[in-house]
């Protein structure tokens, strides 16, 4: 102890014993401390990467150019966009981002940025990739720290960033588009409110059935089985699994059935069919086919594949679900039971209704309800069921007589994409990031707590990623961006045709497949300008007996068995109202073109424009399968429409596949003349 003290004091003496020596030592210390900052700078991470970059490009053929680009900008780089709040120094280490010739380099941080429609100088980096822009070390820039908690966004969710500004679907972001569709289609927004920066809210696109009259439609046994596991009934079901216990499912089914009020006209006794005792199953199957039920409804085949459309529910086991008397009434007129259903009101005759009902009624699965044995419901069970219905928020999606739709049933997700990490309770072992949290919540909601109400959905991994992407787009930044930067989606259209024709079009659910003035589906052609396009006689014949215009099309327009007066009503309306302002449909004659012009058109059709690659005019020679068959186009379309279509197809129907040929006037007129001679014949049509 004493000796070490002595040693210390002698050291002190040596260093500071004399004023000159002390001055020298202090000067050295000051000099040393002054050198710390330059040394730190010299050995910094980013310099290391820049040196690596120089040695990487040194041996390349284009080294001179790359070095020149680099020496224009060595040192710390910064993209500063005050209007967007962007201060990004990422380009300090990611030196080659803008170098197109580095396409073959795959090592980071020297990769070229993939080609995108925006430039780095426009938006910087963190707008899309997140992370800490001003940081100059990898750790601080890429990962979350105590001070900065925005980590890099994993590449698999990067499309979410596009969604901050772009509200409309983009060609290059299929994952984001799918996620947004799923949010609306799987009814997420029934429970979770999602407000968009423009003040509107995402609307659900599914239409969960009303349960107010469920007893007319289904049995309690089916309701019980469905509640226990919707996927056991239909593999395409969008209803999630609430993981209900047996008594809970029993009580909810008891409540729903007892709460159901009968609805006048939604059941129908079988009409007596004198000719046939039992309906013929093959006749039922062919009526199902002829009515194009499969355009909207899917059925699981023996191989387990689901075949058919997804507009209506899957019908694989529909016989287990619906009561025969309800099914008959539904087929006769679905709008009695559900006024806003997407199902058209087919004008089926009574024997047809019986045939279809018998065919569908046979679609059963013996195992589905065989183990369901429910005793008569007690009043306690019904009361408990009512409590459970309120607790699980069933009325958020379904209309249930006497139960109010709950408000703000689940947390609002308007800014979920920016949810601070400090506010999230992660599961043990889970990666601490917002995307990991969101996707885990979607994958297994109840893993965060058995008492949570959110049900279990069945999604494929790609669907979970898509949903996560759509939710990650809902950031603070999306809400704070200047409105001028956002690219809004098309505003939703509430278009409703007027008068009796409008009622008929609603009754036939035209909007389930066709779009008119921005409202409706995309399964069938847009009819906004149908009145300028087609001839009245053809339109009426088509509605009476819809044939197919495109040989390779599977989903087709069904035959609704319309009366002549209904057809006249609708066709009058279409011809009068759905006209383009661009031209007069009667401005060109439908026949009487000079033979020379027709012949010239034929030459152009087959040689210069080679239309036969996609269209058929002569069924013996032409084979084109892409566009509609043109054998009777002269009696189907107006000459003015053909002419204007040839001049600019996309102007007539946005998104048309037929290319714009920049056709001169003479060629367009000659082709129109030739096509107008293709009147077809009823015999030829009948043969097909």
């Amino acid at each position, binding site marked *: 102890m004493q000796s070490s003290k002595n040693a210390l004091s002698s050291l002190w003496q040596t260093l500071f014993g004399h004023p000159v020596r002390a001055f020298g030592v202090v000067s050295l210390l000051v000099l040393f401390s002054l050198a710390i900052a330059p040394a730190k700078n010299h050995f910094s991470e980013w310099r290391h990467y820049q040196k690596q970059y120089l040695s990487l490009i040194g041996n390349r053929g284009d080294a001179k150019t790359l070095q020149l680009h680099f020496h224009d900008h060595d040192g710390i780089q910064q993209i500063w966009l005050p209007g967007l709040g962007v201060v990004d120094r990422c380009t300090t280490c990611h030196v080659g981002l803008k170098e197109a010739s580095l396409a*073959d380099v795959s090592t980071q941080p020297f990769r070229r940025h*993939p080609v995108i429609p925006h430039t780095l100088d426009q938006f910087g980096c963190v707008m899309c990739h997140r992370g800490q822009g001003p940081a100059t070390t990898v750790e601080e820039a890429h990962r979350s720290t105590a001070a900065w908690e925005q980590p890099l966004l994993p590449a698999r969710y990067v499309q979410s960033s596009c969604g901050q500004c772009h509200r409309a679907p983009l*060609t*290059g972001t299929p*994952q984001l588009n799918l996620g947004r569709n799923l949010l609306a289609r799987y009814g997420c927004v029934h429970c979770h409110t999602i407000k968009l920066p423009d003040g509107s809210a995402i609307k659900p696109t599914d239409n969960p059935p009303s349960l107010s009259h469920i007893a007319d439609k289904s049995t309690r046994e089916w309701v019980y089985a469905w509640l226990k596991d919707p996927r056991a009934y239909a593999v395409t079901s969008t209803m999630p699994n609430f993981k209900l216990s047996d008594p809970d499912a029993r009580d909810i089914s008891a409540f729903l059935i007892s709460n159901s009020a009968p609805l006048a006209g939604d059941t129908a006794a079988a009409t007596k069919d004198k000719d046939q005792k039992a309906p013929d199953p093959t006749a039922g199957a062919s009526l199902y086919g002829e009515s194009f039920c499969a355009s909207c409804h899917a059925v699981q085949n023996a191989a387990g594949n689901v075949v058919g459309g997804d507009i209506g529910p899957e019908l694989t086991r529909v016989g287990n679900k619906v009561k025969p008397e309800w099914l008959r009434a539904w087929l006769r007129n679905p709008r009695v039971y559900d006024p806003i259903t997407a199902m058209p009101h087919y004008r089926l005759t009574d024997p047809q209704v019986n045939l279809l009902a018998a065919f569908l009624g046979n679609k059963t699965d013996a195992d589905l309800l065989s183990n369901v044995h429910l005793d008569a419901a007690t009043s306690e069970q019904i009361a408990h069921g009512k409590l459970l219905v309120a607790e699980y928020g069933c009325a958020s999606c379904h209309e249930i007589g006497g139960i109010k739709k709950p408000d703000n049933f689940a947390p609002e997700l308007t800014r979920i994409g920016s949810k601070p990490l400090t506010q999230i309770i992660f599961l043990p072992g889970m990666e601490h990031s917002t995307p990991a949290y969101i996707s885990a919540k979607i994958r297994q909601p109840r893993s965060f707590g058995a008492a949570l109400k959110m049900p279990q959905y069945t999604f494929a991994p790609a669907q979970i990623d898509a949903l996560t992407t759509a939710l990650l787009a809902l950031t603070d930044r999306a809400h704070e961006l200047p409105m001028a930067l956002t690219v809004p989606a098309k505003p939703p259209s509430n278009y409703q045709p007027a008068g009796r024709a409008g009622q008929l079009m609603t009754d036939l659910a035209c909007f389930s497949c066709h779009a008119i003035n921005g409202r409706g589906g995309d399964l069938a052609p847009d009819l906004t300008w149908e009145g300028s396009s087609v001839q009245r006689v053809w339109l009426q014949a088509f509605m009476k007996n819809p044939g197919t215009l495109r040989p390779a099309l599977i989903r087709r327009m069904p035959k609704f068995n319309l009366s002549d007066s209904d057809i006249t009503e609708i066709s009058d309306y279409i011809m009068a109202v759905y006209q383009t302002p661009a031209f007069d449909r009667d401005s060109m004659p439908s026949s009487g073109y000079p033979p020379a012009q027709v012949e010239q058109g034929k030459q152009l059709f087959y040689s210069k424009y*080679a239309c036969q690659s996609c269209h058929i005019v002569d069924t013996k020679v032409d*084979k084109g399968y*892409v566009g509609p068959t043109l054998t009777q186009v002269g009696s189907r379309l107006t000459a003015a429409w053909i002419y204007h279509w040839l001049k600019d197809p996309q102007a007539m129907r946005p998104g048309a*596949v037929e290319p714009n040929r920049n056709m001169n006037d003479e060629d367009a007129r000659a082709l129109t003349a030739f096509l107008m001679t293709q009147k077809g014949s009823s015999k030829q049509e009948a043969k097909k």
Partner: protein
Amino acid sequence: MNRAIPDQNVRTQRLKPGLTQCSYRSAGALRHPKSGATPFRHWRTLFAVSLVVVSAACTQKLGPASVLKPTGFGAALVESSGGKQTGATGMVLAQPLVVQVNDEQGTAVTGALVEFGGPAGVGFDPASGLTDSSGQLSTNVTLGGVAGRYQLTAHTAAKTQKPVELKIEEIALGFQEQVGYQLDNKYCARCHNPESTAERVSNYDNLAVKPHPFTEGDTLNKMTDADLTSIISHGGPALNKSALMPPYGYTLSKIEIEALIAYIRLISDPPYHASGTVYAQK
């Protein structure tokens, strides 16, 4: 515009490290030092050291040894579904990859251990597993961050010494190629893709002059970007080819045509090498 993926195959531990492609390549690189004056005994030591280092590096990537104990052994590994998909870079493929293990008679083997591998950046969930009662194992594949073709492998231990390997290819699309893929689906595939799907009947067989499928690298790789731009914009006659190919220059934008070409270049088989790649080889 070389889109080849760096071949950094993750190898299984049971393969002799000295025989892996990985170590061969690294060893080869050391065998030819820049100076060329290294004495013989030195490079032999170096070779031995490199073997140890590389094999350590190879096994390091695998992480802890698999704890799964196979209960069955097959003789063949076949792809059941999920190969030849196109997906976006860094994202999960839409369909899982399903492989099946069969024995000599072609019967499915239950409980065989299958391990998946691929270039850097590719993820498998799960990366290995035992086959189910139908002899199959399904995994979700996440593609790497660089656009290109990804050669994936699946291994299963056979009764004999040599493990059975199956090669599977998936294609990762960058943003530009993704746009091209969508455009191809809408405008081109109807004629250029001979395969029909449930939603799309191919028009290929109906055409008097057959179009070139976009994977046909032997033909398309010889054409420059300018040639392709010209034929897409102005139609077949622009290059003295068939008028059955219409012009899309008034329908598609310049950016869209560039995206389409980027996509065509990416899926070309054999792969397309642009002149730019010579820089890296020098």
